[in-house]
């Protein structure tokens, strides 16, 4: 079954590349706006050979990791407070919903003014774009802990912080995971978006360079890299955790 899906997928991607090559060979579109798959591959090879591609990947991933880690930490703490104190939810909660609706690039001008052309500026944008998704999911998870778990835990002598760390957070784990997953997706958009505008190293910067040089192959090559990183993180990190959590929590 799984093998069949993989075969189907490989055939699909080969098909795309073949169609792409055919359209290119027909010469309908100028090479300046429509490169061949081979040109894109050459561009990737060139970037890999001079190391600029790996530097770009490493820079973007470091900003992603730093931003996402901070988002998860701050986002969870805020979510826990909102779930535990109704007055925090009534006040801060409404602001969180508002902030969550701000598109990530809308944070860039503020980050630029506050932090200048620094890593900190881009990480700030990453945090601002992803943190509130973590907060909202943490809040929902804590609010949806089955009352029987809490009753059982209190019955066995758990209280206060013990109740939060030993029962409520683990019980909320399926929600937390979807919060992290959403957070990561927002963070990745935030990093790339900020890098394009900041034009200060990273994959977003390389995209911008491609635009400035009128090099459509480089633009498409970097977009492919951004997509592949997305697929890998989703598939290798989140799908695995999700599957495990779903079966253990009896949700699958």
């Amino acid at each position: 079954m799984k093998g069949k899906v993989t075969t189907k997928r490989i055939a699909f991607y080969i098909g795309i590349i073949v169609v792409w090559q055919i359209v290119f060979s027909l010469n309908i579109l100028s090479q300046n706006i429509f490169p061949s798959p081979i040109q894109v591959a050459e561009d990737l090879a060139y970037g890999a050979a001079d190391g600029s591609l790996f530097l770009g990947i490493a820079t973007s991933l470091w900003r992603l990791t730093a931003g996402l880690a901070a988002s998860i930490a701050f986002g969870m703490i805020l979510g826990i407070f909102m779930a535990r104190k109704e007055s925090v939810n009534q006040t801060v909660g409404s602001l969180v919903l508002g902030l969550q609706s701000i598109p990530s690039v809308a944070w860039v001008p503020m980050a630029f003014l506050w932090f200048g052309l620094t890593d900190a500026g881009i990480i700030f944008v990453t945090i601002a774009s992803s943190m509130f998704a973590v907060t909202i999911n943490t809040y929902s998870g804590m609010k949806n802990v089955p009352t029987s778990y809490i009753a059982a835990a209190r019955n066995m002598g758990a209280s206060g912080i013990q109740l939060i760390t030993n029962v409520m957070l683990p019980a909320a784990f399926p929600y937390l995971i979807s919060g992290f997953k959403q957070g990561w997706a927002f963070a990745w958009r935030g990093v790339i978006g900020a890098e394009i505008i900041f034009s200060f190293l990273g994959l977003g910067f390389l995209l911008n360079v491609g635009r400035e040089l009128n090099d459509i192959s480089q633009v498409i090559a970097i977009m492919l890299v951004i997509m592949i990183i997305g697929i890998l993180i989703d598939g290798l990190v989140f799908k695995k955790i999700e599957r495990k959590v779903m079966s253990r929590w009896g949700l699958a």
Partner: protein
Amino acid sequence: MTKLEARNIVKHFDHNGNNVLALDGINLRINEGDFVCIVGPSGCGKSTFLNIIAGLEKPDSGDILLNGKTITTPGPDRTMVFQEGALFPWLKVIDNVEFGLKMAGIPKDERAQISQRYLDMMQLTKFANSYTYQLSTGMKQRVAIARALVMDPEILLMDEPFAALDAQTRDLLLVELQLIWERTKKTILFVTHSIAESVILGNRVVVFKNRPAKIKKEFVVDYRRPRLAEDQNLVKYQQDILAELRTEVKAQIKGEFEE
């Protein structure tokens, strides 16, 4: 010696905006080593009464005394086995069993020693490292019982723990619970809607009247143990209780019809 005493417990709850009297002055005295079953129609308030004893709900008035001292908060001296088990799916069986010990700050080695004893008693040793989703409903309730016993409570509270089990598993656990009771000499308060269950388990069976709940009558089941589900001699006890309960069930059906 009196282990637990409920003094004039009154409790109202909110039902569709109406203030309904749920418990209308419950008085109950449970002696050390007693096995008391509360039986009554479903929704009559017997689980509420148990939750009040556990400290999970507060009565509007009245007191619960454990060993002569008033209690108001939940505590591991009154551990409960819940109907749906309420096991933690993120923990292995052994960690579920050790949960209360961990909360009490007992060191790991000591926890392992204590939990081993109860895993053995409930025949769970083989499943110590399983997760709860890998267990049958019957196995889950064994874990729930082990998790409650491990705290060595003054009184064990059981809230319809066998209601969701298939008949064979239930009959098996009914016998095992009697053996555990004899072996550990625990005081047990067991809530059920099954008259058959109540006469198999209890040496006292307390019949709750329908809403508002009050104790209608108490029966003493003085019969050898372990009692088996198929023992025909228990039918006589069942009939006595059923006669008492029949009017209650009718009243409940009538009440629901009028709502």
